């Protein structure tokens, strides 16, 4: 009944696919490590495209790596391509001017970010009602100007897009697919023949397509734009900025500028990102059963087809969600109104891992948290209360930032910090980064390495009282992973996290604080499990021998990323003593084996930590955390 709510005309997406260049087998980089697969470099590089939001650009949603270096790129895809309209409807001159203006505005935004579309044609300019959106504009950028793929993309400059715009405008004004019946080679010959042309290229094309009369009718101001774009010398073509200044676009400039300068962004109940997330949870699969899943084939290293994703499964799944659920009440003092609310979606008792994959549950959580985040900092208490239940993975980065009290000026702060001057610590950072959570695609990508290095250097610069201890890299990894497109936020999270949970751990001489933690840890074991404590004592199995990385990195050097995220969801709600309780719960999970083992077996168990059930660990540690007398609890925390 509320499906129409989901069926926003802009909320559709499609995918394209290509293959990255494969390395020759057994090639190594200069450090002796195998070369990073090109698909991973692309994966890291393409992430930033997801942050580009503009009414004239399709939003990037996801990059997925398939087998054999396949890359699938998912992006918004709404409306129909301009080429679909050609030779059917005729656009009025006013329409064409507006389309030209919108394409230029979109291109200008890209060029300002040093992104060249390179691929612009009437096939990937989408028209929805009166609004144009450019599609597939990131291919050139994400493949590092074509270096990471083996199909031909040539090095170029932004003026190439201006030429393409000219061609699109010719197609629109003449209402024709240009050189439609010719083969590729013939088309290339046609275009090369333009090089020798002394007369107007536009006029020549019009004559070739028997449209000379139509050409004569086109207003001079539009002709002028097209002529400017179709200059064979790139350096003589105008830039987007210059074209946008032309009088012909005057009627569009003013109102749009007004609209763009709203003081605060309007609140959206949900975004296309979230719709895509729910669609995936509801079973949406990009790779199976479509062209996206075909084997590597030299003829289709780049596949020009666009696969538009059907959303029916999601609509069916969400069919019965009442309208009220899109507008949850968060601060309702009236019982009468509260009683009229639909009953909450019941997921109690389900394991966390199931809840995170349940599309309806994630729908409710995301809708609620988006609202709460929108009201931050005034909703801080409510965020904490809800976070105690669970944190929706899609919004984890933002929620963590609020739990850590990140202030709104974090970007400015980060910008000011020196991240580049060489220091004595560089060598250590450089050898640690290629070993830090490298099973993860983001963290193993070239972009990931660069970002992690900058964040670590910034942190050292900013905290002259502290030093880099190995392990700080692991500690930073979860924040970078969650805020990959916002280094400043990752840095701000780290900067707030360390004083709150690891006070003094990164002092040059941290032996006092480590000894204190280890002593408290021994006490905690004795308090909760005297039998285990005395066994460990008898076999000389001291925490010094195994627990230093546990507390120094708050388990981020011990567990894989997906476990750290669940663990830290709770850490952030506790205080600096909580890590001791996690340690206790790890020992408890291994209790039977520890009790029956001698020193060697015990220590081996921790050198190669067996599977630890994180959900059990979290529940157990929350229990002891809440039930332990204070004197066993916190080592000093900074107020």
């Amino acid at each position: 009944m509320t499906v129409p709510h989901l069926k926003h005309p802009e909320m559709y997406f499609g995918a394209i696919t290509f293959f990255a260049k494969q390395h020759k087998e057994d090639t190594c980089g200069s450090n002796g490590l195998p070369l990073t697969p090109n698909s991973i470099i692309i994966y890291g590089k393409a992430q930033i495209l997801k942050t580009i939001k503009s009414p004239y650009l399709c939003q990037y949603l996801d990059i997925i790596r398939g087998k054999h270096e396949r890359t699938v790129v998912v992006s918004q895809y709404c409306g129909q391509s301009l080429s679909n309209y050609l030779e059917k409807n005729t656009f009025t001159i006013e329409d064409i001017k507006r389309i030209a203006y919108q394409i230029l505005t979109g291109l200008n935004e890209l060029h300002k970010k040093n992104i060249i579309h390179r691929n612009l044609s009437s096939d990937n300019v989408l028209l929805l009602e009166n609004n144009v959106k450019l599609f597939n504009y990131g291919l050139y950028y994400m493949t590092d100007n074509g270096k990471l793929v083996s199909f031909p993309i040539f090095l170029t400059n932004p003026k190439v897009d201006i030429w393409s715009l000219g061609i699109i405008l010719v197609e629109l004004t003449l209402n024709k697919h240009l050189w439609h019946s010719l083969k590729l080679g013939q088309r290339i010959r046609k275009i090369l023949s333009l090089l020798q042309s002394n007369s107007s290229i536009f006029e020549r094309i019009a004559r070739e397509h028997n449209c000379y009369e139509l050409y004569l009718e086109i207003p001079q101001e539009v002709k002028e734009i097209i002529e400017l774009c179709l200059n064979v010398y790139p350096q003589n073509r105008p830039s987007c900025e210059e074209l946008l200044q032309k009088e012909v676009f005057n009627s569009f400039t003013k109102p749009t500028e007004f609209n763009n300068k709203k003081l605060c962004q309007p609140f959206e109940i949900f975004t296309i990102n979230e719709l895509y997330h729910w669609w995936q949870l509801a079973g949406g699969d990009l790779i199976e059963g479509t062209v996206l899943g075909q084997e590597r084939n030299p003829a289709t290293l780049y596949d020009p087809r666009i696969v538009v994703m059907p959303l029916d499964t999601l609509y069916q799944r969400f069919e019965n969600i009442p309208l009220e659920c899109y507008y949850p009440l968060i601060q309702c003092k009236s019982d009468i109104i509260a009683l009229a609310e639909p009953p909450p979606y019941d997921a109690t008792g389900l394991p966390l891992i199931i809840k995170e994959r349940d599309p309806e549950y994630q729908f409710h959580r995301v809708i609620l948290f988006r609202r709460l985040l929108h009201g931050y900092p005034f909703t801080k208490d409510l965020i904490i209360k809800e976070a105690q239940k669970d944190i929706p993975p899609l919004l984890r980065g933002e929620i963590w930032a609020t739990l850590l009290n990140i202030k709104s000026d974090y970007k400015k702060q980060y910008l000011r910090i020196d991240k580049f001057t060489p220091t004595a610590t560089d060598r250590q950072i450089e050898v640690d980064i290629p070993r830090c959570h490298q099973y993860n695609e983001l963290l193993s990508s070239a972009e990931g390495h660069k970002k992690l290095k900058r964040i670590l250097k910034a942190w050292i610069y900013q905290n002259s009282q502290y030093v880099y201890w190995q392990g700080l890299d692991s500690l930073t990894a979860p924040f970078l992973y969650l805020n990959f497109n916002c280094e400043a936020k990752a840095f701000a999270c780290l900067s707030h996290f360390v004083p709150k949970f690891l006070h003094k751990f990164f002092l040059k001489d941290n032996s006092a604080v480590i000894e204190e933690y280890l002593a408290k840890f021994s006490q905690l074991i004795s308090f909760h499990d005297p039998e285990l404590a005395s066994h460990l004592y008898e076999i000389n199995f001291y925490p010094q021998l195994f627990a230093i990385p546990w507390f120094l990195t708050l388990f981020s050097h011990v567990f894989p990323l997906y476990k750290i995220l669940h663990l830290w969801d709770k850490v952030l709600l506790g205080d600096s003593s909580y890590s001791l309780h996690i340690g206790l719960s790890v020992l408890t999970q291994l209790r039977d084996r520890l009790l029956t083992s001698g020193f060697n077996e015990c220590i081996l168990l921790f050198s190669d930590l067996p599977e630890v059930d994180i959900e059990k660990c979290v529940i157990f540690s929350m229990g002891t955390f809440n039930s332990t007398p204070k004197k066993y609890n916190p080592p000093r925390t900074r107020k």
Partner: protein
Amino acid sequence: MVAADEDRLAAADRMANRSGTAQRPNGSTQGKICQFKLVLLGESAVGKSSLVLRFVKGQFHEYQESTIGAAFLTQTICLDDTTVKFEIWDTAGQERYHSLAPMYYRGAQAAIVVYDITNQDTFGRAKTWVKELQRQASPNIVIALAGNKQDLANKRMVEFEEAQTYADENGLLFMETSAKTAMNVNEIFLAIGK
């Protein structure tokens, strides 16, 4: 290279003889089980953990995580008719973790000091470790020097002869090793065990 290999073998023989007279904790005799505590030291990212992993599990991980504090592993092998059980402490390489090291080398019967043949600084650091062991560790400790990452010999910055000379002068067992290709990994552990 052949001459160098002969040197190496000669050195190994000398070391083997020396370690034959080294004190053994359980007073092991033939047919007995002998426990053997060994510690790995050296600058970070030279391949200490990788050497241990290769020796104990026969594996090699390209992206072997850094070691914080220390890791402990064991391996049991048969040498002639003696079962030797290696108890290996693999330590953190970063200089800052230095203060923890004595906890691991105290009472160790052997140490492998590792450097990276493609990095001269790590060789300097290895020499510092050797000095420290000679001063502070138990007097009978067997010290081996491992020039790791031999698979990257085309990027070599530390000459084999230079290290060999240093090892000879200090009475160290010396081999160039590669945890990646497994070259000399078992050999260096076994030579110590003899």
